[in-house]
């Protein structure tokens, strides 16, 4: 009795033999226990391989994927908040600085005016007003 080759049994369980070959192999294994055992072994091997598939943490995987596609709202809001605070701080600081500078200039002008009115200007030069005062 001619037994099918291993590769024929392999193709047989995959349904990948020609119709005539499939029928020949089937007819043989119906009457040959040894080949029937070999086929059962191959089928059990395939089933065992399918059962080696792991069960993954799908929730964790999915949230990692979605985070990469669309960063979470919390993180986006944080960036927005930091930017807003930065801009607000710049505006406030700039406003305060301008006010202080203007106030200083105003005080400086007042002092100058006082000096001018209290003293007599004798002469002025290139480096601003130079006056020689006479005590009244």
């Amino acid at each position, binding site marked *: 009795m001619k037994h099918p080759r*291993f*590769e024929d049994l*392999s*193709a047989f369980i*995959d349904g*990948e033999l020609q119709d005539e070959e499939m029928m020949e192999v089937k007819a043989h294994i119906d009457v040959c226990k040894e080949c029937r*055992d*070999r086929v*059962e*072994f*191959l*089928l*059990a*091997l*395939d*089933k*065992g*391989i*399918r*059962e*080696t*598939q*792991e*069960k*993954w943490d*799908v*929730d964790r*995987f*999915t949230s*990692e*994927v*979605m985070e*990469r*596609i*669309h960063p979470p709202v919390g993180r986006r809001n944080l960036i927005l908040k930091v930017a807003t605070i930065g801009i607000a701080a710049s505006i406030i600081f700039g406003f305060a600085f301008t006010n202080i500078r203007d106030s200083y200039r105003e005080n400086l002008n007042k002092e100058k005016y006082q000096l001018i009115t209290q003293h007599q200007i004798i002469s002025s030069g290139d480096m601003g007003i130079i006056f020689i005062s006479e005590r009244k």
Partner: protein
Amino acid sequence: MKLRRYEGQEDKDLILWAQEGDEKAFEELVKRYSNQVINLSSQIMGSSDEGWDMAQEVFISVWKNIKSFDRDKNFYPWIRKITINACYEELRRRKRERTISLDNVEDNEPSVDLPDITYSPEEIFDKKEINEVLATLINTLPEHYRITLWLRVVEDLSYEEIAQQLNINIGTVKSRINMARKLMKEKLSMYYMEEKDETSSF
């Protein structure tokens, strides 16, 4: 406005919503197919960690290209193709030094010459630890055998579909699957022969 229900929704509807930009719909699709994709990419990459990372790249690619997907076709075969292409591209890009390259397959006969000992399925597959043993042994197969066998046995692709996915001819598919099964059979035989020897030595 009617609230959408995502869980239990058909793929076709989820895909349509995802194509309109609904991220929740896409999230549901990721949940449905992530197990299969991670398992497949792990087998191709040869490692669970790399499989996990590659699977993420796959879904990001799916999201970017989802508008081009034809909803009349099945969704998973499309993802599977992206997975295989992405993994193979990554492997080629790394240019790993291997004895057997990805493109130049040499279908060698198994190097270990063992007697053809066939244990009955009950002797082997009813053992408690068989899943662990098989998972370990399958990882020792040369990668082109392992991947081809996985596509046949787990992904349930025909020889022709495998040939198209891997850009090889059907004869090579048949040869690789045959060789993979032969190697697995011999490795299992060797494993349980050693186990029997250890047991009998006591």
